[in-house]
């Protein structure tokens, strides 16, 4: 029976390839149905599995860890395209297994959706789980964030492998208390950077101790609710970090971890946290220092994550923002930049975005500095326009252009520096529209 199911799965993968279609999810969905929802347990995996989960940063951290092992000469299997649900992971393993379902590799490095961690790793033995952060994201798919954390916490109660947690996120760090018998709990941490604040700057969750309900005390906030916290009552948050990022200077950018200085390509506090998690994973698996260096210093992202374009002679930066934290980060980068600039915000409400767009009200637009014009686009172009207007921005300078090509034209009309923020399903159409503009009017892509 099992062999037959794998055979069917493999045939589907083959057919999709012959049809030149992406076999990201469909084979897994079929297998999931014919195996009565136990698809992942079809596979026999003997090598260590490393899983990366969290709201933001999964793809970056997974890719970097995959490179650590690749450059160490190991054979790895990883879901680079980000198919991170159980069906996506299932499709990935189908492509790499033999007819008995055996998966041959030295390491599996799997980006895993937050809500799928328990279902996947109750069926596959996990060596290391890395949890980056929990933010409000696509709430209507996952139910409330607390339910999500409870789900992963339930998994952690019996998990004995390495648990590498963001020690500066109370939502994440609390998982460290799920299983008192687990001796392999490790926290990564970062010292304050230049823009860390004493009071919370953006809408945030997790202000209260999940164990005793006391208000958490923060020494500093890096962004949103990420920062050095502790509970004055039950001491939640008082832990010895496994790895710490210090001497963070985003102008260069450089940071130090475990006495070693890294020069990453990306200059955000986000990236420092992600790369600290990567350095933590490297420490766990004794990766050679020169390899860690080369991975961290060369890592850069495309696909609309701080991607540069020239619209004619107008320098333009596109950034994906799936949630308020991502958007607030871009606004900060924008504000910290001198001179006048203009913003295009593209907001969609397709199923993958979460149908609800109210998260835009958790973005702090009142900090706008020297933003001379705003263009809005996407299926919810008006919602984002109203939101920016109500933050006190003069509506005479807001231009709503639901059609993306018209929006890009509107943005490029005037000289000066441009920023583009697009949410999940908006990012690829926005890139395409920027490229269309460039092919018609000149300029260049990164």
């Amino acid at each position, binding site marked *: 029976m099992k062999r037959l199911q794998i055979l069917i799965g493999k045939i589907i993968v083959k057919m999709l390839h012959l049809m030149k279609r992406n076999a990201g999810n469909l084979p897994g969905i079929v297998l999931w149905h014919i195996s009565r929802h136990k698809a992942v347990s079809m596979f026999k995996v003997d090598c260590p599995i490393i899983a990366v989960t969290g709201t933001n940063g999964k793809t970056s951290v997974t890719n970097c860890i995959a490179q650590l092992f690749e450059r160490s000469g190991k054979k790895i299997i990883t879901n680079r395209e980000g198919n991170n649900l159980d069906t996506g992971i299932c499709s990935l393993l189908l492509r790499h297994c033999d007819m008995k379902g055996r998966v041959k590799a030295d390491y599996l490095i799997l980006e895993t959706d937050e809500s799928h961690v328990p279902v996947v790793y109750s069926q596959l033995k996990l060596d290391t789980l890395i949890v980056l952060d929990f933010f409000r994201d696509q*709430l*209507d798919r996952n*139910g*409330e*964030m*607390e*339910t999500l954390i409870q789900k992963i916490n339930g998994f952690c109660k019996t998990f004995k492998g390495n648990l590498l947690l963001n020690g500066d996120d109370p939502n994440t760090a609390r998982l460290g208390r799920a299983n008192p018998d687990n001796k392999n709990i490790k926290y990564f941490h970062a010292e304050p950077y230049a823009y860390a604040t004493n009071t919370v700057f953006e*809408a945030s969750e997790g*202000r*209260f101790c999940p164990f005793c*309900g006391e*208000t958490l005390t923060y020494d500093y906030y890096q962004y949103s609710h990420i920062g050095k916290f502790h509970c004055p009552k039950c001491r939640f948050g008082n832990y010895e970090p496994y790895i710490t990022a210090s001497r963070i200077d985003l102008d260069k950018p450089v940071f130090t971890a475990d006495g070693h200085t890294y020069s990453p390509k990306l200059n955000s506090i986000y990236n420092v946290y992600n790369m600290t998690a990567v350095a933590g994973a490297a420490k766990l698996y004794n990766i050679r220092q020169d390899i860690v260096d080369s991975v961290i210093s060369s890592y850069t992202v495309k696909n609309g994550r701080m991607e540069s374009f020239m619209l004619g002679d107008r320098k333009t930066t596109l950034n994906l923002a799936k949630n308020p934290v991502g958007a607030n980060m871009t606004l900060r980068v924008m504000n910290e930049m001198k001179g006048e600039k203009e913003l295009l915000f593209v907001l969609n409400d397709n199923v993958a975005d979460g*149908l*609800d*767009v*109210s*998260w*835009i*009200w*958790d973005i702090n637009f009142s900090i706008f500095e020297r933003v001379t014009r705003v263009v809005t686009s996407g299926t919810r172009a*008006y*919602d984002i*326009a*109203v*939101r920016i*207007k*109500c*933050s*006190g921005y003069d*509506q005479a300078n*807001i231009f*709503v252009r639901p059609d993306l090509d018209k929006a890009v034209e509107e943005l490029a009309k005037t000289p000066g520096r441009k920023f583009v923020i697009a949410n999940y399903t908006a990012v690829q159409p926005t890139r395409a529209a920027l490229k269309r503009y460039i092919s018609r009017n000149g300029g260049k892509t990164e």
Partner: protein
Amino acid sequence: MSTIKILHMYADMLDLYGDSGNMEVFSYRCKMRGIECIVDKYSIDSPMPDFSAYDLIYIGGGADLEQQHISADLLKCREGIAKAYKAGTFLFLICGGYQLMGKYYRDADGNDIPGLGLFDYYTVAPNSRRKRCIGNIVIKTNITGTPVEVVGFENHGGQTQGVKTPFGKVLYGNGNCSKSEAEGYCEKNVIATYLHGPCLSKNPEITDYMIGYCLSRSSGENITLKQLDDKLEKDCRSVMLQRLLKK
């Protein structure tokens, strides 16, 4: 200059789906008319306020855990809130705030969280956490005197029953219960609703109704508000109405 005083309760705990944005919209529409709008915050550690000193009391929605956290504290405020409400203070309540003003909220495990009992309705959460009313919603309300189509986003497990005077009639979405006809609860000085979005963002008539109510009550005259340029808000709403109501 006229002034409106608002007490925003549990802003730090009850703030789902942009609920705090309602205060931003409210303040914005006051500011554009030269009306001073003072928003005080009350939360669990705060000293007991004089509720009757406020023109409007606002409570947003939260996750189950947060609602449990605040329910005991809210009960301590019962007398003050009831007195203010009877004297005419406006109550604007979203989701959890709406539920907790009723008789009780029975959670998925069958435990009752007592409400303030200001109103007769009560709320029961379904046994399964998966059964939630989630999605865009359109209702038609007559609270302002002329029918207004109000667009928002609902996400609630609780099914609210025993409402005699709903806020509006459901044109699209669920309302008080799964696939129900009525949404929310209202009186002349109460709007209680499941609508997030935030609720006021594309429904300027509702904000203006509350502003008008507060000013008329404090001045003793029937105040007519200065019209604002609401083109963006109205276009925003009509895009959604087109999409959701077209046959």
